[in-house]
């Protein structure tokens, strides 16, 4: 890194994105209007499980302004399904997880049977959206209802209907892993605790629903797709594959994207359908999802049922854990067994536990497909683990905070080997951090443990129920396999950076300008950042899994390093100096110790051009441009400790969070202001999941929370006072010390809230082992419970 300019990394500079967005000049998919553009309305299943007997499109086709109506049967031999394995796994992961995986492919529109309420089976293309929806209403589908498989448990029952005929027992994937002696070590433990936990289904719920536009160019035979997605390169791959086109002829752009949080992190049928329609019709085609469709059809998440057994001694030291769980993956599983893999790998969190055994089944049901959402398998296990710790503490009469301190990995144990493979196939080794210190700080943040326990006692004597909820986690971030970046310096002298990162509000245009400015020692305004456009970087991966800060920065650095070699060679030639005497300084290359001897990057870029006027030394190719792919050695480990004080209103069961503190460590922060917003935003989503948000199904597999009237997002008045304290322990795994942080905030709140409520209601013997934590359940505990006098 250059040392002659003030560093941008670590500064909360104002975001580049802000101006256009606050002026209403952002450009989201819905805002894009192309000449002659047609609009799609999609017809979706109203039954959870049904065979398709016939779909009559005649009436729809006769609507004035309707251009095309199609059902699944029309596409059966035309478009292949989306592969069930959008994410691949390395062999070393498979060796450690013993997986049996048969994730079903997903037809873009099935012709034979429907597997969840919301699954598309027909569509209309029309001159405008109003006409398209009118015509869609006239599509007459005939169905034979089949017995719905409405939960993962129901899917396991002997004789249950099969969601996919080729998957006996409705099992799409089985995983198994262990460390030490595994579950057999439970037998040696002085105490054992067995519990069932359920983490409910909720979802990313970005404020912008999904949307896709495609335009075919008959001159080049190419197609441009604008999609509200987190993964433009995946969309390009799947569109090119489905339409049998060279990837080079498919350009995918994610313009401004109104939130993603994982829900836009894989390829959906509509991404391909719209591209197909545009090519078929030779006119631009637009599909915009409405909120009802989003609730029914955009991926849901969580929905895990755990059977946990913990072995521990008199001191509360946990020696062994058995983690058997099933995932309700809905009708398809777009990222395969990746979430379940995360759940297995993250269960033990920041604790030093010698023996562990996990067994997981990913179940197919007649619910909406399940895909990663902020946390992706971690909130579920943080809930099961952190509840278990509180219950162990209860059994022994030791403070839950103390039990955590006794089990935590100590800083001197770093790097700490867990004994399980991560999803990237590398054996997990926590890289850096001080977990007990994070918990100490979190407890200080709520006023100190001892002070709170005193206050709690006094309050209880006055009939006030206060509780302390604690939740800790670790999070593998910055996962590979790679990210791409192209760096160029053109004749303007500006540093151009393009990466495969696809932001949805993370401030990447700003953050990567900060990173590149530091790498080059230039002013931020001299860095041009291009994101989320496949035409600017050949291969990319995308913004999912808290990965972009680490992986895109790595790629920018790697390509910059190669461009720098040429810059120095050419500058040395111009300055008639030795390369080793040169340094980057403020947009120039200069001779160390000789301030007057320098050449600007603009001059170097012009000297690098091909042609008669160049000033390149012998053997140096023309142009200042390089594309590089950063393949991280493995993940970096972010971590956090959370503590919150909750108060229960015993008359109503209302749960009030008086104060919530998270001590979060994501290594070196690029832009602390952005980082703080990421963690706080995640926390509020976690609190939403803990208390309000739920995708609830009835016994017929109908979604009961299909609008914002029933699916409750947290509002400004629901948010408690939140303090986020950032520690910055650099990761030793990359030159910058970065770890990822997009998801972290959302991981702990369900555990923290449940622990806090149970702590407050300890006199009633409260035990809440499922989410969301509802006021009516709290009230039930109070009404049923006998108050145990202290």
């Amino acid at each position: 890194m250059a040392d002659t300019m003030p560093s941008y990394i670590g500064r909360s500079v104002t975001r580049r994105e802000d101006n256009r967005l606050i002026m209403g000049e952002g450009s989201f998919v819905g805002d894009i209007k192309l000449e002659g553009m047609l609009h799609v309305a999609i017809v979706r299943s109203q039954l959870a499980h049904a065979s398709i007997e016939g779909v009559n499109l005649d009436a729809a086709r006769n609507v004035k302004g309707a251009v095309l109506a199609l059902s699944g049967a029309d596409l059966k031999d035309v478009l292949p399904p989306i592969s069930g394995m959008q994410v691949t796994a390395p062999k070393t992961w498979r060796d450690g997880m013993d997986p049996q995986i048969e994730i079903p492919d997903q037809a873009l529109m099935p012709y034979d049977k429907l597997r969840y309420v919301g699954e598309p089976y027909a569509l209309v293309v029309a001159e405008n959206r109003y006409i398209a929806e009118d015509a869609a209403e006239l599509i007459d589908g005939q169905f034979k209802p089949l017995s719905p498989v409405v939960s993962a448990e129901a899917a396991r029952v002997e004789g249950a209907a099969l969601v996919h005929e080729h998957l006996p027992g409705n099992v799409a994937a089985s995983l198994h892993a262990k460390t030490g002696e595994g579950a057999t070590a439970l037998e040696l433990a002085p105490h054992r605790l067995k519990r069932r936990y359920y983490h409910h289904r909720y979802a990313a719920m970005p404020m912008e629903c999904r949307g896709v536009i495609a335009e075919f160019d008959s001159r080049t035979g190419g197609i441009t797709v604008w999609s509200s997605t987190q993964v433009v390169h995946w969309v390009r791959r799947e569109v090119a594959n489905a339409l049998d086109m060279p990837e080079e002829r498919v350009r995918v752009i994610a313009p401004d994207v109104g939130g993603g949080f994982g829900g836009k992190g894989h390829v959906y049928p509509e991404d391909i359908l719209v591209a197909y329609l545009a090519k078929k019709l030779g006119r631009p085609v637009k599909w915009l999802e409405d909120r009802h469709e989003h609730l029914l059809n955009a991926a849901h998440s969580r929905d895990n049922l755990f059977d946990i057994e913990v072995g521990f001694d008199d001191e509360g030291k946990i020696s062994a854990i058995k983690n058997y769980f099933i995932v309700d993956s809905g009708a398809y599983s777009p990222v395969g067994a990746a979430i379940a893999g995360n759940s297995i790998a993250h269960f033990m969190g920041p604790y030093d536990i010698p023996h562990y055994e996990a067994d997981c089944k990913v179940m197919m049901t007649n619910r909406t497909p399940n895909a990663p959402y902020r946390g992706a398998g971690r909130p579920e296990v943080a809930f099961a683990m952190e509840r278990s710790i509180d219950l162990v503490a209860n059994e022994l009469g030791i403070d839950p905070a103390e039990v955590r301190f006794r089990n935590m990995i100590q800083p001197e144990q770093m790097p700490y080997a867990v004994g399980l493979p991560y999803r990237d196939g590398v054996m997990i080794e926590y890289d850096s951090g001080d977990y007990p210190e994070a918990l100490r700080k979190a407890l200080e943040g709520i006023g100190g443990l001892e002070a709170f326990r005193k206050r709690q006692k006094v309050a209880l004597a006055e009939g006030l129920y206060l509780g302390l909820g604690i939740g800790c986690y670790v999070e593998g971030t910055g996962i590979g396999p790679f990210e791409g970046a192209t760096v160029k310096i053109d004749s303007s002298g500006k540093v151009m950076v393009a990466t495969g990162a696809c932001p949805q509000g993370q401030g990447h245009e700003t953050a990567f300008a900060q990173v590149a400015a530091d790498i080059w020692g230039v002013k931020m305004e001299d860095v041009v950042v291009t994101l989320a456009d496949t035409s600017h970087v050949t291969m990319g991966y995308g913004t999912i899994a808290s990965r972009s800060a680490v992986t895109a920065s790595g790629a920018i650095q790697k390509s910059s390093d190669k461009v720098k070699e040429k810059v120095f060679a050419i500058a040395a030639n111009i300055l008639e100096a030795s390369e080793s005497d040169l340094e980057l300084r403020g947009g120039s290359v200069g001779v160390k110790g000789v301030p007057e001897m320098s050449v600007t990057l603009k001059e170097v870029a012009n000297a690098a051009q091909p042609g008669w006027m160049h000033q390149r030394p012998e053997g140096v190719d023309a142009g200042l441009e390089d594309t590089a792919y950063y393949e991280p050695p493995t993940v970096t480990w972010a971590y956090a400790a959370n503590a919150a004080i909750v108060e229960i209103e015993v008359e109503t069961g209302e749960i009030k969070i008086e104060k919530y503190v998270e001590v979060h460590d994501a290594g070196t922060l690029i832009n602390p202001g952005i980082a703080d917003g990421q963690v706080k935003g995640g926390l509020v989503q976690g609190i939403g999941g803990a208390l309000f948000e739920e995708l609830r199904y009835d016994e017929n597999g109908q979604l009961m929370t299909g609008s914002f009237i029933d699916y409750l997002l947290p509002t400004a008045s629901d948010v408690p006072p939140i303090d986020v304290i950032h520690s910055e322990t650099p990761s030793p795994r990359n030159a910058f010390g970065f770890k990822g942080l997009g998801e972290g905030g959302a991981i702990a709140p369900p555990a923290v809230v449940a622990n806090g409520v149970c702590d407050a209601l300890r006199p009633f013997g409260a035990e809440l082992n499922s989410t969301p934590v509802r006021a009516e359940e709290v009230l039930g505990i109070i009404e049923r419970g006998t108050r145990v006098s202290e």
Partner: protein
Amino acid sequence: MTAPRPISLTVNGERLKGEALPRMLLVDFLRDVLGKTGTHVGCEHGVCGACTVIVDGMATRSCLMFAVQAQGVEILTVEGLADGEALHPLQKLFSEHRALQCGFCTPGMLMTAIDLVENNNSLSEDDIKIGMSAALCRCTGYEGIIKAVTSYAEQVYDKPARGKENNG
């Protein structure tokens, strides 16, 4: 289907005309007919607040109003806040307080705040939280939004926003 109706109205101080079928939503008219795409559509059932605009001085869900109902009204949308390149004070505060991430809810959030602050004489912190809960943000967790609106209220009322009375 009945015929399109002519609609004339004032948007951001400019007299505009357009045509809409009686069933066309105001938000679609603003976006698709008049090209004012700063106003967004988030739920189409009046809950999320992304489509909020000011109609004759009052915050209004433009997804719950038909275009034909806007005949003769005066509308302020997000595009009308800045004076050329000069940002409205509330827009500046949104950026300063990190009150936006993806920016999709932001136009509706800004219009909700304008109505809340400008149609009241003073606001307590609770008033602001409750008032701003008319619009949903999924990214920020609201902290920056509340700070920005509180700051704006202080500027407008020329005094710190506190006290519990609600004049709204």
